[in-house]
């Protein structure tokens, strides 16, 4: 406790980022350190975050110190340690979980394991202090495309997900064949603004009637086939038009499914989470469709869309308040289901 506030330390290492944050009373961010976004590591030895646990190992103590220092607290002030326990890369997850357990054991503070996707959803509690469950959530990122019904802070039900590629993955791969580079999401989003979304028709894959699942693998192949056939015909490719048409095909499906989910469950609140929540086309289309249906749309600031410790601290805080602590025998689960 500090200034009569309950302090949660949130640790996130499920993928590329080593991220640690201190959050007060579940929603007030005191510090939010993300390894790729600070320069101190580049200054001593050029540690570029990659997916290996080795990089988390090199980063994690420095990130922890920086998170405590920026929040102007010490471990004594911390009341709870929250950590991502899955899903993710096993080696990467283990670095976070082992660190959390070591700190919990040494300090005698309680520990709580958090599902990574619940973390992403919880980023919205930080952004919007008035937001409370129930609501519908749409999670779109490099690794996830899910529609989740949130009935309470710790009661989440997956209504639909991708059957093949995640939407962010599809963006990265299409960006690659268009020669736009990595990461694909922002690059396609940017160039698509100069293109005609109706220039090329790519089939929208809605799957079975009433299904809230997604399939993006066929769309990726359709873009490849289009580019190959244009090349063979000797025609010049307008990358902006292809990017705009591809993006339209993706977003038409995502927006329709998100609206269907709200309608089926009669939800009047829609919450966006994950990296693709920063996509301008997705936001514009959802703004319009939600306004028509009088659905309130929530999304986090870009820094809270990417992997971060604050969202994990927030999710851990609410889980602890509902269910109490986990044991020190908690573990990393690379294939954890929601």
């Amino acid at each position: 406790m500090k200034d009569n506030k309950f302090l949660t330390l949130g640790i996130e290492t499920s993928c590329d980022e080593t991220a640690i944050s201190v959050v007060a009373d579940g929603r007030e961010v005191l510090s939010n350190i993300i390894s790729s976004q600070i320069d101190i590591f580049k200054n001593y030895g050029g540690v570029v975050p990659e997916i290996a646990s080795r990089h988390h190992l090199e980063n994690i103590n420095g990130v922890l110190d920086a998170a405590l220092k920026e929040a102007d607290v010490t471990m004594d002030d911390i009341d709870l340690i929250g950590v991502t326990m899955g899903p993710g890369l096993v080696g990467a997850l283990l670095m976070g979980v082992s660190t959390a357990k070591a700190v919990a054991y040494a300090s005698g503070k309680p520990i709580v394991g958090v599902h990574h996707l619940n973390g992403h959803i919880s980023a919205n509690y930080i952004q919007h202090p008035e937001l409370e469950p129930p609501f519908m959530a749409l999670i779109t990122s490099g690794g996830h495309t899910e529609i989740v019904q949130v009935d309470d802070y710790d009661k989440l039900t997956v209504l639909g997900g991708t059957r093949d590629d995640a939407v962010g993955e599809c963006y990265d791969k299409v960006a690659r064949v268009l020669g736009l580079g990595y990461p694909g999401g922002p690059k396609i989003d940017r160039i698509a603004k100069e293109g005609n979304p109706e220039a090329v028709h790519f089939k929208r894959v809605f799957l079975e009637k009433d299904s809230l699942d997604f399939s993006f693998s066929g769309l990726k192949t359709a873009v490849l086939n289009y580019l190959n056939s244009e090349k063979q015909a000797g025609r010049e490719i307008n990358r902006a038009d292809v990017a705009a048409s591809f993006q339209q095909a993706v977003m038409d499906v995502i927006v329709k499914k998100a609206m269907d989910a709200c309608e089926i469950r009669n939800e009047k609140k829609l919450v966006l989470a994950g990296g693709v929540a920063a996509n301008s086309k997705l936001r514009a289309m959802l703004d319009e469709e939600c306004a028509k249906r009088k659905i309130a749309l929530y999304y986090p600031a870009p820094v809270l869309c990417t992997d971060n410790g604050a969202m994990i601290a927030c999710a851990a805080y609410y889980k602890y308040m509902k269910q109490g602590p986990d044991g020190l025998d908690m573990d990393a689960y690379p294939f954890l289901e929601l």
Partner: protein
Amino acid sequence: MEFKRIVTIENEEETRAFGMELAKNAVPGQVIALMGDLGTGKTALTRYIAEGLGITGRISSPTFTIVKEYHSGRIPLYHFDVYRLAGDNDILSGQDISGEEGRPIRERAMDELFNIGADEYFDGDGLTVIEWADLIEEALPEDALKIYMEYGEKEDQRIYKCTF
């Protein structure tokens, strides 16, 4: 590279038949390495191998998590996609754009693979299928079944060149 078998696949149904056959012959500790560009059907073929093993549930792309495990079939399936092990680099061009000079992409990818514990999977009690295996070819077991997947002349046609 010497190929024992070159198969022309005309449609999805033939992909399925090919995957089912691989599954039927699969034994614990076997590694199937899929090499081919985007859209040649690596994930689709893996999905049919999974079906052939009797695995129920969704087989989604493991690109993000590098590996996914499935335990509901005749033997476990370890589905790898090593695409992201190249970091921000373009796998096929081999061009290193990350600025970490002096460390070739392949060498780094191999390090990452080791960190994930891939060798334990390869020698494990299940079938390992690896997408984008070109990137980690040096790390593959000697007896890995390699399939080079290429586009055919027609839109849906694919050529599988097999080393077995």
